[in-house]
Structures are given as structure tokens and as C-alpha cells.
């Protein structure tokens, strides 16, 4: 079962603009993470937000979490061409013995 669903599926912006991606999930979670994948490569962890947190920052990244709506958003500020990649949210459920479940991803294209 796919836990996270990202929205939009694809996003095209100009350098310097902000990019916002959203993720919705279905069950209670311990944490929500965002990962980045450059074309044809493995995923790289960007940021984690715990279920008792509402907002977190890391450099140009800002993540929010609304557990009442079961949703999260990733904001990339002042985007660069190098931010072009696919972005995935991943959740781990509160019950023990489960693995990370990923959404389908948002493909971000930043043009100069």
C-alpha cells in the first residue's frame, strides 16, 4: 500500500522562484521524511519531521506537518537549476515492524 501521495506530480519553475510540494498519507505515523532523487540515481535523505513537530527548517528547505489533515508540505526557497530532481515523501507507521513507505513523487524542473 502506498502511504504517501505527492502533489503535484510535476512542477516547472524558474530559478529564484519557490517550489512547494505536498504529501498526503493515510495512517498514523511516527515520522515523515522527504527524499530527493536525481535522474537515474538512488534517493538521498533531505529532512525528517517527527509527528509531534509542526515545522522544520534546513537551509533552503522548510517542511510542515499537519497530523490532523495527514499532510505535509516541502518548500524549497530560491530554487536553483541544481534542485531539478524528483522528491518523495516517506512515512513509517506507528505500529512496529514496518518499513518506510514512499509516495509516487513530484518531479521538479527548475530552468535558468
Amino acid at each position, binding site marked *: 500500500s*502506498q502511504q504517501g501521495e505527492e502533489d503535484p506530480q510535476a512542477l516547472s519553475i524558474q530559478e529564484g522562484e519557490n517550489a512547494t510540494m505536498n504529501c498526503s498519507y493515510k495512517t498514523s505515523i511516527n*515520522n515523515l521524511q522527504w527524499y530527493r532523487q536525481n535522474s537515474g540515481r538512488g534517493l538521498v535523505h533531505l529532512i525528517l519531521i517527527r509527528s509531534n513537530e509542526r515545522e522544520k527548517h534546513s537551509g533552503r528547505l522548510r517542511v510542515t506537518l499537519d497530523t490532523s489533515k495527514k499532510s505535509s508540505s516541502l518548500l524549497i526557497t530560491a530554487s536553483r537549476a541544481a534542485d531539478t530532481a524528483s522528491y518523495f515523501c516517506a512515512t513509517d507507521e506507528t505500529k512496529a515492524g514496518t*518499513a518506510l513507505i*514512499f509516495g509516487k513523487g513530484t518531479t521538479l524542473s527548475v530552468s535558468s
Partner: protein
Amino acid sequence: DVKVTQSSRYLVKRTGEKVFLECVQDMDHENMFWYRQDPGLGLRLIYFSYDVKMKEKGDIPEGYSVSREKKERFSLILESTSTNQTSMYLCASSLLGIPEAFFGQGTRLTVV
């Protein structure tokens, strides 16, 4: 730095062949995972393991098996490949109780 190494970046196999995809991590992680990634479907969990000789089915285990004889190595086995197993296969590992996962570079398998 954590390193997760997948044995091949690209593989081409004929229908019916047996395929072993190897994954090795060098940070003594307890958890290891195999995902497949297909366009429009995101990452789907095939199998995961929390310890040596332990395995748990993910969302799409049919047609696959796994082996974990040593802590650092997690193998994905395709007993008799079919064309619908053409995909990108991603291995990941994480520490027990730590949600951040580290990914290998992926193996792009083509079955002809």
C-alpha cells in the same frame, strides 16, 4: 559516510533466467530493504529485513525472494525473470530505531 553498494548498475537478462541482485552496506545497519521503482508508481516495497536470517514481505513480494545470511548483505532473488520485472531496483539500509534510510545507486534491470 554510510555506503550502500549494489552490485550492478545495469543488467540485461533473458526471460526465465535466475537473477541475484546484491546489496552491501558498511555501517552495521540492522534494517535492509528492497524497493522497485517504476514510472508513475513511485517506490514499492518488495521485502525488508530487520536482522540476519529474518525477512518480511512488503507490498509486492510475488516473483521475488530474499536472503540475508550476513548482516551487511541483503540479496534479492528473481527465480525466473519475466518482462514485467523490468524495473529499477533500489536497496536501502537503516539503523534500528532510526528512520533515515540510506540508498544504493540502483540497479536498472531489463528483461528481454
